[in-house]
């Protein structure tokens, strides 16, 4: 007999399908429809794990997502830590073990798929219990677009866990009728196994759908395992139900202690008896139907211990009928047991202090301290809560414009009330949308006597002398005790948020569902204040643990971030380039030959550019086309130098500054026609500069007749560099007069290159004679191959970004964002020549005159030559004045911004921003490196070809 605690005639599990599973190394069986917890209970297993701190045996307290204790690690088929056994659906071949609070991440990659769906609807209903179903039906019949999400595999919510009847029949009949009708409506979507976990502004609700977890190894590979639903709803109805809360008493954490409503759920949803002989401890009416249904199913109820002085007559009568001993005005003060509860200690509870205790033998202790409405989702998006003293819990203060609660989530705990409240919430939502829904006939509920008020009881004072609450558990997962709460208040903490952080209560996977409100109550009692003034812990998303893999969805691996490649990318790959990430771009970094190190490759590429001819792929340069009668005016206002005087056919280098006068980008501007310019930006800055220009154009100078368009990807750009570049170009551009006089530096010509219409600019980012061949991206490979072929006899060499950086640094051409950091002016870069003195104003000009920008001790760009010509300074290294590192704080003079090995200089060199740098030329400064300092000589920034003799070839 594998499942001795299975009750005949109860539950929704499919007893025709038996599933084998392994828990803590022992084989068991259960049925389709079980959770791991219900299958364990059916086999009589209560002890699931030991607690994280005190290693006390722990069992199964609840039947759902609020479970604080029964954590498991799934070992097979999908390794996954930290799952609550009460929410893991059983499947064939499941292997799990109990966890003491900490799981172990899988060391194997997760091969399952995860994805995300965006959905929109008029009304979103969360929860498919009686309130949620009534709300959904009401909204759906109006023709509204409705989404219903529910965490369980079956609809019905709390109806699954009770024997309450609707229209005189088992409630399942009404539930299946409603769902069948919803299935026929085209604008209604019902999502099962889907838990709403986040509620954000403007009706955005995030939910996690577990699509194939319950299939185990049989899950089809092509279906995503889990899916995040991002639902944007006009109106939201949270019919999220309520969580039962326990009462703190001595040794209230033993296996076999369970919430009364959860035991009822195990009987009615799963057909499982959680014990043979039970004591029921309650403060309210709700435990009576649980006790009666369990008694009728064969559990011996040894006693119902009711903290209230008066027990409602009809409940007492029903108990008497079954021979159940009801003890009014009594409490459970403690328990005995080792692996499992064996005895409840019961005492009269007169003047707030328990009397003499009496032991009652049991293997199950059911507890009900009342119910906390599940308000987490409601309050996440600023829904205010208020304390309802009648139920001892926090409820929504009032509906928001597009968010309301229904049923138990709003503190309405009767079945009839939940049904009516659900329909009413939907009607209000429809009315807010300007829709009218006809009234929906709700099913009749069994007549119930009026509910008697419950007693609000957070903890039973310990009968032991001098007891300090150090055996009374508040947060079972965190092993936090009443004494911990009292220590916090004793230390002067007055806020529930502070106590939460001091004790860690409410910070575990269960978000304090069974401990949060109880904590507020205990603090309020300790401080002698009203719980209403104490408030409760702020509830934040995610309400349930969500795997990172689900959040990531398809955005993993190569889909994590878009990869941008140029039209020449396949050639680079084919020729062995290594790539560097620049923003989202893949740029060739260098092209190592067989056996070459990076240093060797870069030195070889540099040598080719300085002594022969070399070419690179510069297509990633940002390119912005500027058109309109006022194009020149706009550029004059945004660049530090004059652009309106540029002649058609010419090119000018320009710098842009912010209004604070700091350089934000540089590049070249070519005048294409009288009313058209094309400017280039730094690769990583293209989008930002376009936005920057648009901002000024739209917000400050809307009168200017200019249009801006990004053309970055339209043009491929190929710099052709080196003393022999003119010879190579002449071979492929036969119609172009390449003579220096006819085609001077900083001019451009439209001419066919390799038969392709091209725009060739004489621009140099290396100081060498150089051209920049621009062709439509589609034709780039033709032109690139033609250049390679034409340059073959000159030893033409492709080079990457590293060589580009060395060549430009030798000439002190700054990279904005590498040699600058947003605090550097053009003057600091030694580029006063790029700042117009003629223009009356441009963005940044006024700031140059600020006292701060005139200081002589600003950091300026200089060159650094390490004393040992082999020493390569790390970029970012600090610069100090002394060879010994003084005691902190060490006065910093600046830092290294660029540092390379130079083939042309036959040594290492660096660029740096140094305080009063231009006045320190010739000085020796020091760079701390590996616990020592390296002597460096400060130089002019330009270290190669200072006179610029090489640019014309």
């Amino acid at each position: 007999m594998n499942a001795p605690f299975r009750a005949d005639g109860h539950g929704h599990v499919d007893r025709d399908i038996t599933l084998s599973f392994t828990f803590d190394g022992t084989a068991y069986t259960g049925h389709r429809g079980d959770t791991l917890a219900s299958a364990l209970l059916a086999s009589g297993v209560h002890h699931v794990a030991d607690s994280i701190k005190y290693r006390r045996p722990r069992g199964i307290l609840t039947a759902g997502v609020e479970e604080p204790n029964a954590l498991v690690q799934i070992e097979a088929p999908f390794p996954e830590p930290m799952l609550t056994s009460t929410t893991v659906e059983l499947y064939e071949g499941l292997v799990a073990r109990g966890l003491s609070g900490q799981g172990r991440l899988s060391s194997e990659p997760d091969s399952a798929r995860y994805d995300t769906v965006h959905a929109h609807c008029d009304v979103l209903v969360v929860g498919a219990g009686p309130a949620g179903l009534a709300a959904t039906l009401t909204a759906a019949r109006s023709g509204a677009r409705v989404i219903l999400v529910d965490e369980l595999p079956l609809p019905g919510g709390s109806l699954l866990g009770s024997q309450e009847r609707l229209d005189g029949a088992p409630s399942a009949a009404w539930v299946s009728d409603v769902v069948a009708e919803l299935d026929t409506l085209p604008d209604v979507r019902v999502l099962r196994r889907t838990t709403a976990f986040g509620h954000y502004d403007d009706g955005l609700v995030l939910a996690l759908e577990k699509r194939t977890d319950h299939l185990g190894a049989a899950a089809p590979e092509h279906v995503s395992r889990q899916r995040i639903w991002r639902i944007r709803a006009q109106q939201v109805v949270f019919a999220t139900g309520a969580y039962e809360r326990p009462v703190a008493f001595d040794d209230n954490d033993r296996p076999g202690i369970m919430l009364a409503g959860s035991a009822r759920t195990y009987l009615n949803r799963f057909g499982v008896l959680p014990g043979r002989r039970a004591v029921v401890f309650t403060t309210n009416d709700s435990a009576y139907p649980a006790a009666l249904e369990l008694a009728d199913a064969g559990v011996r109820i040894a006693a119902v211990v009711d903290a209230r002085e008066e027990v409602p007559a009809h409940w007492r009568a029903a108990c008497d009928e079954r021979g159940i001993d009801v003890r009014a005005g009594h409490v459970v003060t403690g328990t005995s047991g080792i692996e499992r509860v064996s005895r409840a200690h019961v005492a009269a509870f007169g003047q707030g202090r328990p009397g003499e205790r009496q032991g009652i033998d049991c293997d199950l202790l059911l507890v009900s301290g009342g119910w906390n409405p599940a308000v987490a989702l409601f309050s996440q998006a600023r829904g205010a809560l208020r304390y309802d003293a009648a139920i001892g819990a926090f409820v929504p203060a009032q509906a928001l414009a597009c968010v309301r609660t229904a049923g138990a989530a709003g503190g309405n705990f009767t079945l009839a009330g939940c049904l009516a409240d659900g329909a009413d919430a939907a009607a209000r939502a429809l009315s807010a949308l300007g829709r009218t829904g006809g009234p929906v006939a709700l099913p009749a509920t069994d007549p119930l006597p009026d509910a008697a008020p419950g007693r609000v009881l957070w903890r039973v004072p310990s009968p032991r002398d001098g007891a300090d609450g150090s055996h009374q558990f508040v947060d079972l997962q965190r092993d936090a005790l009443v004494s911990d709460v009292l220590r916090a208040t004793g230390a002067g903490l007055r806020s529930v948020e502070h106590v939460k952080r001091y004790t860690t209560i409410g910070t575990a996977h269960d978000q304090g569902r069974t401990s949060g409100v109880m904590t507020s109550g205990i603090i309020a009692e300790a401080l002698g204040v009203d719980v209403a003034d104490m408030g409760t812990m702020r509830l934040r998303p995610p309400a349930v643990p969500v795997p990172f893999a689900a959040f990531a969805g398809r955005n993993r691996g190569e889909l994590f971030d878009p990869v941008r490649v140029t039209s020449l990318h396949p050639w680079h790959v084919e020729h062995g380039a290594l790539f560097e990430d620049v923003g989202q771009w893949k740029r060739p970094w260098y092209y190592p030959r067989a056996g070459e190190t990076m240093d060797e490759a870069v030195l070889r590429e540099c040598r080719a550019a300085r002594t022969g001819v070399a070419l690179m792929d510069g297509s990633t340069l940002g390119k912005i086309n500027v058109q309109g009668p006022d194009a020149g005016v706009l550029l004059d206002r945004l660049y530090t130098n004059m652009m309106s005087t540029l002649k058609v056919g010419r090119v000018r280098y320009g710098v842009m500054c912010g209004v604070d006068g700091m350089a934000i980008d540089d590049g070249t501007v070519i005048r294409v026609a009288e009313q058209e310019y094309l400017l280039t930006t730094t690769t990583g800055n293209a989008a930002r500069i376009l936005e920057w220009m648009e901002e000024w154009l739209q917000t400050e100078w809307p009168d200017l007749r200019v249009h801006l368009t990004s053309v970055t990807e339209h043009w491929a750009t190929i710099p052709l560099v080196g003393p022999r570049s003119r010879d190579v170009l002449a071979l492929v551009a036969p119609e172009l007069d390449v003579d220096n006089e006819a085609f001077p530096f900083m001019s451009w010509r439209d001419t066919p290159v390799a038969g392709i219409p091209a725009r060739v600019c004489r621009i140099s980012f290396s100081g060498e004679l150089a051209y920049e061949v621009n062709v439509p991206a589609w034709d780039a490979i033709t032109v690139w191959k033609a250049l390679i072929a034409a340059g073959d006899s000159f030893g033409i060499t492709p080079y990457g970004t590293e060589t580009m950086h060395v060549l430009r640094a030798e000439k002190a051409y700054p990279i904005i964002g590498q040699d600058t950091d947003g605090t550097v002016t053009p003057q600091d870069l030694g580029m006063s020549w790029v700042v117009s003195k003629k223009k009356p104003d441009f963005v940044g000009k006024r700031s140059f005159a600020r006292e701060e920008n005139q200081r002589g001790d600003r950091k300026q760009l200089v060159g650094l030559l390490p004393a040992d010509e082999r020493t390569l300074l790390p970029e970012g290294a600090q610069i100090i004045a002394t060879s010994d590192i003084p005691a902190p704080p060490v006065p910093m003079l600046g830092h290294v911004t660029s540092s390379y090995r130079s083939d042309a200089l036959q040594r290492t060199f660096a660029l740096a921003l140094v305080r009063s740098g231009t006045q320190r030329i010739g000085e020796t400064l020091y760079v701390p490196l590996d616990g020592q300092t390296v002597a460096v000589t400060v130089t002019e920034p330009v270290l190669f070809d200072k006179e610029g003799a090489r640019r014309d070839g």
Partner: protein
Amino acid sequence: MQLIACPWCGQREETEFHYGGQAHIAYPEDPYALDDEQWAQYVFFRDNPKGPFAERWVHSAGCRRWFNALRDTVTHEFLAVYTGATPPSTTSTAPAAPQRKGQEASR
């Protein structure tokens, strides 16, 4: 995640937008008539009110156009979006127009 009503595109998710700081800070008519303190007020200083605040936004991942919004900095609620020089007068909570040194010249 909020929805923001772009005046041209309608409601879109906030990730499509970029924030542009306080609205109605015009570039000074004559920056050289301002002393350093007044110029610094224009460059660096902005209001930081608790409550309604006139701001600039740009629908950067949409139509790429700038607009103004009146937003409550406590609740994050957008009280109005507009393209004119002042917040719509229909809004009872319109803030006092920011007046600071260095700005008079621009008005």
